[in-house]
């Protein structure tokens, strides 16, 4: 039992029937795809499903063995469009992205795909970025399922159910000629558990066994009039009933608890565990999900099956619908179904549960209590728990007094993007404020302290486009920030081409760090082609020039003064039109992953290696922390002053420093203080180093006889 759990993640993708798979939700989905005979996979990275794509990319060997075609898509629209392969061919395909934002980007292709319909199973694995830990606007993917007639799966968050829903999802897609979305919330993506593995299945047609000839021309497969009118009808009259039939026959939705009762609960599959926990506390269930209230678990949240809903509600006085987010689509649909069936079951939902925010245990408990009370029953254990929790919270707030300072994520130690914001902050002091159009990516951390820059965020790669009207209506040129990830995702066309075409007088800074870093260092088109990477080294600069951008300058980010000069030029230049600053600096996380082991290896081999780090002189630092207000680097921190005359903490560089040089650059550029020192550590020094050092030391010793003013000890020499 224990042995398998220690297999490395990718190895577990090769498990076969009889093995127990152990791992996280996302990895289980990947395994389920392989068990389903998928022929092609792809997607666009974004938490909480970045991992899915990472695992796919890293398991290329296994994929090619099974003949699975892998595509690292440039954005979600490309990923959705890729599913077009399943319109004409009996190929099972799966793509993944973060939602709601990814689904928004994919919307055009999704609508077209859904209209045409598929003959090969098409599955979209959606990371529903909602609630605690989410990084995007809070909206429901459900709306897309409704408007485009895509089926939406929301499995109970345990691996066997998730895996089953992936496998059934393909079947459902094929049975109803409709693409299927599988929605996983953040915690479900990362849930660790186990399931009984099955053999991987190689697709009949794949990268290994290619389709001999293209599909015959069939106009009806095009999302183009007049076929679209037929397709719309087809969706409603054929695909929907087929899907509903499949859902019933294969028992995709589950009923827990007794068959009959006065009250019942309808819950989204993904919320089942939270609900069960609170029901168990109320004495209405137990740790194994043996419920005492009839509960219909919707592992498929669209489409609903009216006869299933009617059957469940018949004979019940009232039903609680536990549905997270808004609008309350399920509640509305159930209401309509009951009305049409002339059933008098009262519906509770958003009247007892909040319409916004994550359904945590406490939130569900409050709703459940109200529901139970309204129906004449009571759960004292539950109400006691709520009262205790509230009283406890009050007590804590009283004991803490003032609020705790927030800890938003920030740039990594030595991040190449930090100096750009240092330069912008210094320039703001010099020239006054400018409108800053922020974007999605690590650079969005520039909106947090100590930089606090950015007036709007309109989506990934959208910064320049979002500044278009600002540039036309404001005296000072706006500055748009964009990452190289955002540039290739959307910014190149929506932003740059648009700004050149419209002759917008605007400044764009492209953070050229070489990766899609915020999502975990995925390769992008301009990533350097490396042994393990998928980058092709596409050139941002020549791309810009070929578009006719009149003003392009490259600037190494760590040179703060240089960056200030370049930005000042861009903001004040007489030349009209778009001015692009390419801010060059490799992602430090990626760089350190490469450099650190190499340094350790050379050092251990006895080779001469140099490393740089910074240091704050505790005697010289006066504890004003101006340097921190221009940096915010995690390794530039504070420590107690040992000087009894000066109690304020002083700045301090801890041993995480990677020697990026920003401290010194800022000290120079802002003319801060003489407290910063750069230390070059030479490991395994050679003869020349030693000789130079000896001579310098000896001479310093000569002069140091009465150095430093204490007039006592001679200047000691650094130990060798």
């Amino acid at each position: 039992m224990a042995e398998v759990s220690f297999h490395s993640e990718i190895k577990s993708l090769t498990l076969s029937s009889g093995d127990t798979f152990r791992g996280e939700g996302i990895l289980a989905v990947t395994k389920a795809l392989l068990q389903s005979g998928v022929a092609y996979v792809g997607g666009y990275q974004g938490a909480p499903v970045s991992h899915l794509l990472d695992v796919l990319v890293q398991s290329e060997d296994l994929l090619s063995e099974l003949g699975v075609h892998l595509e690292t898509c440039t954005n979600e629209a490309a990923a959705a469009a890729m599913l077009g392969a399943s319109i004409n061919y009996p190929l099972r395909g799966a793509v993944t992205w973060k939602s709601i934002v990814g689904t928004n980007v994919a919307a055009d292709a999704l609508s077209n795909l859904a209209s045409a319909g598929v003959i090969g199973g098409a599955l979209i694995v959606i990371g529903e970025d909602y609630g605690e830990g989410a990084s995007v606007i809070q909206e429901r993917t459900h709306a897309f399922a409704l408007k485009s007639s895509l089926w939406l799966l929301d499995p109970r968050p345990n691996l066997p159910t998730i895996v089953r829903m992936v496998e059934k999802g393909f079947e459902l897609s094929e049975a109803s000629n409709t693409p299927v979305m599988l929605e996983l919330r953040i915690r479900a993506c990362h849930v660790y558990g186990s399931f009984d593995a099955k053999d991987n299945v190689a697709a009949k047609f794949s990268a290994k066994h290619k389709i001999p000839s293209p599909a015959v021309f069939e106009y009806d497969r095009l999302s183009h009039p007049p076929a679209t009118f037929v397709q719309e009808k087809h969706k409603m009259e054929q695909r929907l009933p087929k899907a509903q039939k499949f859902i019933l026959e294969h028992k995709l939705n589950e009923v827990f608890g007794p068959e009959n009762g006065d009250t019942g609960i309808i819950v989204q599959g993904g919320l089942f565990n939270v609900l069960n926990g609170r029901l168990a506390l109320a004495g209405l269930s137990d740790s194994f999900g043996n419920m005492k209230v009839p509960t219909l678990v919707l592992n498929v949240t669209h489409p609903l099956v009216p006869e299933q809903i009617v059957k469940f509600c018949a004979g019940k006085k009232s039903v609680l619908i536990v549905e997270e987010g808004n609008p309350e689509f399920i509640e509305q649909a159930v209401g309509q179904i009951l009305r049409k069936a002339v059933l008098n079951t009262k519906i509770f939902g958003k009247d007892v549960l909040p319409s916004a925010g994550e359904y945590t245990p406490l939130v569900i408990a409050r709703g459940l209590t109200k529901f139970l009370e309204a129906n004449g029953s009571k759960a004292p254990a539950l109400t006691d728990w709520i009262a205790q929790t509230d009283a406890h919270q009050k007590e804590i707030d009283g004991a803490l007094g003032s609020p705790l300072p927030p800890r938003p994520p920030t740039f990594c130690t030595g991040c190449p993007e930090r100096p750009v914001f240092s330069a912008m902050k210094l320039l703001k002091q010099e020239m006054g404020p400018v409108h800053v159009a922020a974007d999605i990516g690590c650079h969005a951390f520039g909106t947090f302290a100590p930089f606090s820059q950015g007036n709007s965020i309109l989506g990934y790669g959208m910064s320049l486009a979002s500044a278009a009207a600002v540039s036309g209506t404001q005296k000072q040129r706006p500055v748009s920030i964009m990452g190289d990830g955002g540039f290739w995702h959307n910014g190149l066309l929506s932003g740059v081409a648009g700004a050149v075409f419209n002759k917008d007088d605007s400044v764009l800074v492209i953070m050229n760090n070489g990766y899609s870093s915020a999502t975990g260092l995925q390769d992008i088109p301009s990533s350097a082609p490396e042994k393990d990477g998928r980058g092709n080294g596409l050139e941002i600069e020549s791309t810009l020039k070929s578009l006719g951008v009149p003003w392009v300058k490259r600037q190494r980010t760590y040179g703060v003064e240089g960056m200030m000069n370049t930005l000042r030029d861009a903001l004040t230049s007489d030349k009209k039109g778009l001015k692009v600053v390419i801010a060059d600096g490799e992602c430090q996380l990626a760089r350190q992953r490469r450099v650190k082991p190499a340094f350790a290896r050379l050092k251990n081999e006895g080779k001469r290696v140099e490393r740089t780090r910074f240091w704050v002189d505790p005697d010289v630092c006066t504890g004003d922390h101006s340097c921190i207000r221009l940096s915010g680097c995690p390794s530039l921190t504070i420590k107690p002053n040992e000087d009894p005359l000066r109690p304020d903490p002083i700045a301090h560089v801890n041993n995480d420093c990677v020697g990026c040089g920003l401290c010194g650059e800022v000290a120079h550029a802002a003319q801060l203080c003489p407290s910063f020192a750069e230390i070059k550590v030479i490991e395994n020094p050679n003869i020349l180093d030693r000789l130079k050092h000896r001579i310098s030391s000896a001479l310093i010793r000569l002069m140091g006889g009465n150095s430093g003013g204490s007039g006592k000890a001679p200047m000691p020499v650094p130990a060798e």
Partner: protein
Amino acid sequence: MQDARPVRLLIAALGGEGGGVLASWITNAAVAAGHVAQRTSIPGVAQRTGATTYYLEIVPDSGNGEMPVLALNPAPGEVDVMLASELLETTRAVQAGSITPSRTHLIASTHRVFTVEEKSAMADGRIDPQRMQSVLRQFSKSALLADLAATARGANSQLNAVMLGALAGTKALPIADDYFRAAIRTEGKAIDANLRGFEAGYALAAQGNAAEERSMPVLRAPRAENQIEARAVRTLPREAAEIALEGVRRLTDYQNKSYAALYLDRLERFARKPEADSNFLRELARLLAVRMSFEDTIRVAQLKIREGRIERLRRESGTSEGALIRVSEFMKPGPEEIFSMLPPSLARRILAWIEKRGWSERSIKMKVSTTNVFGFLRLRLLSGLRWWRPRTLRFAEENAWAERWLDLAERTLVRDPEAAKAVVATASLVKGYGETMKRGLKNWNLLADFVIEPFLEGKLPREQFADAVTQGRIAALKDADGKPLGALIESLRALPRQQQIAAE
């Protein structure tokens, strides 16, 4: 059927601290011990910062193949064990209601990773760690609070391994110790180091709460070593003499004995007054010593070639035995720093000319190597100019400033001793170099001209004196752009006029 209640465990960590590995060690140990384990996480973004949480539930295997429905969210009041890697984040978890006195065993490291808000305050923005610790003890069933990061450093290991050891040592989970050790071995990375950390954490938990050691600045007992020091001990109350001794030594090193004598002259002027209590004198002695040892270029040069500095630098930067280091100092003196080393009349003329030409913002970018003989020589020569210091413009200006500050303090003292303490404290605004120094001086002058003086002249209501000066100092430290102080002064200006209207 018996309803097995899961053991619930919450981990709060910062990105990059190995919280994920810790969670997987625990999961694997639990599974190896024959339990059913589930975990999930809110990992945050991919960066190495920001708060992350991991949540685990462990249930004994029912034996009949029935799988429990485990929760993915920690519920308030239901967490049995909380592991946390940093003091503020632990407190945050308490604030979120996750820890309860009836149930939660808390294992937390008390070290601090300061937030940007705390770090970037203009004086001391740190949250009181004692208050946080007492909240943690108050709201947990048992609390193992110790600097686990220091334990990890001591064992040359990682924080997460120490935390795993501490968890095993507290016996809070139904898992035998060896399953944890096996989890480290099976994971297979840095096994020896992680096991070292594990044992260190285990030992710590076994011995219970380790006494927290605080490194507070230690003052020398007021024992005089020479004549001038003896004078300080003789003329000042003990609490002030402790500090004044430090001041005398600082200023003798800074300039010479007669300069230290001037320091004592100034202090004694106040020590003779009945209104001056020992707290007042102690703060005065401290701030006067700091201001009289102002950091001009001579002082900076002196500090940068001070003996033992390179050793300290090597030690603090973790430089290994065999390595050589080269140190470059970042300096960028502007016209003020350079020409204020000339006599006042000449310096003022030059600086006025420079300002007329618009060159005030210019400066010389320098990287001076103190491990290189030429760099050392430059600083050595500069530090040797101490004899010249009293003739410089900077000295004259600092001296005039100190006289005015002392004069304000003296005039306040006879009227309102509490306000005098506040006036003395304003000296902490004047510090630093370049822009920081200019900003501090500007704020101090505003405070002196528009708050302190009007009070002394009786233009403002007396009972608000101390409070207004303190508020002014805090306002000046609140924001680098000076807006809060400006607003405060505006509100004070409105005061007497209102009273006049009321009187009419």
